[in-house]
């Protein structure tokens, strides 16, 4: 089971935070801070694992990957394989890369909803449901089309109904 997915930049600003169990926002913030405190102390070229039990409680593991200005962090328990989760981060980042054509931090900053859509296609309620970035892309494109379609109808009726209500 995946417990949490976080993306934060090298200054510790969270760019994406998804917890698969309900946590109060203060707790979320604290966890992200503590993870960052560990991450920023780590050198390059060391392993991608961190002992996370002191932060997330017993039976939790943490894998992270550092891309440019961003840390991608996945927290999970013993029913996931460490290397597989590392590959999963790769899948996630590749999918982002395909969606945004050379993804950079700004893409993630400005596409809050889309990032969540992508992640939701990969991880469902803490379980990994899709590991092929092509499949994810397909679904995400469908969803975006559907969103756009439902919004397209909105523009005119919205103003019209607005005028009518006057």
């Amino acid at each position, binding site marked *: 089971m995946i417990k949490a997915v976080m993306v934060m930049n090298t200054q510790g600003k969270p*760019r*994406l*935070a*998804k917890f698969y169990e*309900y946590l*109060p*926002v*203060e707790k*979320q*913030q604290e966890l992200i801070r503590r993870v960052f405190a560990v991450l920023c102390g780590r*050198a390059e*070229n*060391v*392993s*991608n*694992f*961190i002992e996370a039990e002191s932060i997330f409680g017993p039976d939790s593991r943490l894998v992270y990957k550092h891309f440019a200005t961003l840390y991608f962090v996945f927290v999970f*328990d*013993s*029913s996931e*394989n*460490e*290397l*597989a989760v*590392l*590959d*999963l981060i*790769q*899948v996630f980042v*590749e999918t982002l890369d395909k969606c945004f054509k050379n993804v950079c931090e700004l893409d993630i*900053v*400005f596409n*809050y*909803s889309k990032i969540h859509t992508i992640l*939701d296609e990969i991880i*469902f*309620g*803490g*379980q*990994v*449901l*899709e*590991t*092929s*970035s*092509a*499949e994810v892309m397909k*679904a995400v494109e*469908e*969803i975006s089309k*559907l*969103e756009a379609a*439902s919004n397209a*109808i*909105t523009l005119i009726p*919205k*103003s019209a109904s*607005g*005028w009518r*209500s006057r």
Partner: protein
Amino acid sequence: MSGPSLMDSLFQRTLEDLIKGLRQQLIGEQAFISKALEEIRKEIKSTDLSTKSTALLKLSYLSSLHFHDMSFATFHALEVLSSPRFSHKKIAYHGISLSFHDSTPVLLLITNHLRKDLTSTNEFEVSLSLQCLSRIANVDLARDLTPEVFILLSSNKLYVRKKAIAVVLRVFEKYPDSVRVCFKRLVENLENSDPQILSAVVGVFCELACKDARSYLPLAPEFYKILVNSKNNWILIKVLKIFTKLASLEPRLAKRVVEPICDHMRRTGAKSLLFECVQTVVTSLSEYDSAVRLAVGKIREFLVDEDPNLKYLGLRALSIVAPKHLWAVSENKEVVIKSLSDADPNIKIGSLRLVMAMVSEHSVAEISRVLVNYALKSDPEFCNEILGSILSTCSRNLYEIIVDFDWYVSLLGEMSKIPHCQKGEEIENQLIDIGMRVKDVRPELVHVSRDLLIDPALLGNTFLHRVLSAAAWASGEYVEFSRNPLELMEALLQPRTCLLPPHIRAIYIQSAFKVLVFCLSTYLMQWGSTASSASPDNLRSGVSASVSYESFDNLSVENGADATVTRGQTYTSASITNESILNLLNLVELALGPLFESPDVEVQERARNVLGFIDLTKLELLNSSVQGEKDLERRGVECSKTIELMHDAFSKELGPVSLSAQGKVYLPDGLMLVENLVGMEMICADIEPPSSNLFSFGIPYEEKDGVSFSNLQIEADSEESNEATSLLAEHRKRHGLYYLPLGKSEIISNDYPPANDPTLQGNINDNADDLVKLTEESLVPKRKSNHAKPRPVVVKLDEVDAKPVGVKKAEYKDDSLSGAVRDFLYGMKDMVPTSSQSNLPGKASSKRKGKEKQHTDPHVETKGNLVDYGNPSSRRRKHRSHGKERKHRSAREKNAEEREDTGQKEKEKSSYCHGRHKSRQRAEEPLNVSAQTTVIPDFLL
């Protein structure tokens, strides 16, 4: 109208505007956000759903990434959810899954929305609501929506079906009764050929098996087929995880899976799968030697790999295998030891653990020495990690691996002098523990303690105070082994002891008291033996003292260190002269005089005890040296009586006390512990409150000792304080350097250089090589031919020490869930799952079947593999009928246990039967366990 006007809606900021604004704001982020929140609060009340949903999206953003509470908007989220538009729904579901939890008041209002969307024809709407359900479902939601989930479990759309499968996990967890409805369809999906579906089902079973593996043993054949036939790494990893749990429960299953797992290990190119195989073998299949050898070979490949991740995981796998197969570690010892100097802290700690796992009684000395040297040069955190693991390894099972305690005690002393050492408490406990348990080590213990006490620099390190208190205690308690008690006394009373916290200072004073008594009694004994007339009292004290020396002698002879004995003995016998005793008494008075008024009760009381004792003896001792022989005898006798009494009091040995010792004290007859102390009030009323605090403090202690010198003490107090202050002033003038500013002990800077400064900050890698070389020899399990002496006796306490490490019984947390699963599996054998397409007429499904439009979606072809695997061939597996495993029940199930060998059918049934039996009579669980293990059938035969 309080709602936002049209203008507000038209010029509403979108999420993108908000993000941009947030990046460009000049008023400070918090201020900007609170302004934005204000806007959102207004907008979210709008009647226009577009405005509302945009506000909700912005709020979700602020909640998710700026951690602002959004619970005020839960109802608004539901309003947005009712919108027919997909984009609104998506925003609403997102907001809901962020903010809803079990105690959200409006949670129940969502049921109908979810039901509507679960039955929607739009697969993405269904997906959204499943996603939300997997996140927020509680008992009620899980119960109410079970029928819908059941229908979706056999949906034609893979996209929906896999999510329905995944949501089952949450539904089962919250509402175990749903197992009866959904479990069969879930199991049917195990037969599905699509890797996406299979991956989802196996994932769910993996999670379920993690919580309670035993209930899923009957499904082992299905998992076995997947293990053999699947080519998808992700699925294989999950199946291996399941087998890790199952194989440890059922040895026959282990026997069956070991070969396929080894096959995977040999063939696969994917590191993740390889690691999972290794992990499964070392965790659950460690009895199969060939498999373990293969796994250890793979671990070795991991260890020498460039990739630090593989190295880390290799070390971890090695630490799992270590307890059962130590050879695996020793085979890889060079790599392990080299990793101690790795740049990665994880790897360092991992290898440290393994190094400690290799420690045996032959190698402990060398390994510890190199590790301590290594700790000197490493960063504080890792240094303490090293020290901690040495301490815990060496003290394991009552110092099982320690043969030479003298060495170990001196190692403890050495460790506490390492500048970064923060393990004071642990060292303290061990020093005292060893002192009490191991008689033979006491001389060395006193010697080590002296070295610690005498170093003034150590007093400045707060982490060491605990160690020092142990050293002080040991040197006082076992002062008879000291080579130079006078020196010890100086160490205990040095001015820098004021840096110590009061409770430790009290220990120092008490130890000084013991040393003082010892010196005096030695002196008296000497004097008694030189004096012509030996009174019986003197004789006795002399005898008792010589006994203690005898024991010391024997010991030292054993040590083969005759030189120290003679030195020690000559010293104590020759150099405690009249003059040195006087100096000693003066020193004590000087040092403790100021503590007479100490604000800490403990310190004050002990200081007063010592001073009182000195007052009692000093005059007579002084006089005895000047006055005539007759007088001398008489007074000496009196005084020596006192001293001897104290000496006797202190020479009673303190043994280690068992935790349960209290229980062994029999209750005396007539003592009523349960009775209320009603009578006490009457008695208490009679007692006059003591006239002054001083008396009340002093009396109980002295009465206990049977010596009443309270009056004397009080008399002496007044004189003495004057005398002491003048002496102190004099001393201060002379040794001003060593005095610290009065009353400012807290802010005294540590002007002493730190002890044991690591002068060699040399290249760590060089050291690592040394380490390898050094341990090279020590790790070879050679028997050291000449131990200096046999292992001394370690005093053991009854029960408490021998207390077996209680094997934690697996707790069934979700009793109801596993019970339901077992019940179901019991009943399932009547309905043979032949294919995933079989549609059983369920009451719920028939109701909605009409509405459900049969989509003929393009069959989604996926490669379920991860990017790196490079093995994208997905495989459609033909179902193999395995109905023979699920034949009808025979009537003989009662006797299944006796006829275990008659066939697998009966066995299977008995296990089902047992499952049910168990879930009903959980109270009798312990009785059942043994029986259960015998009747579990060999499913795979």
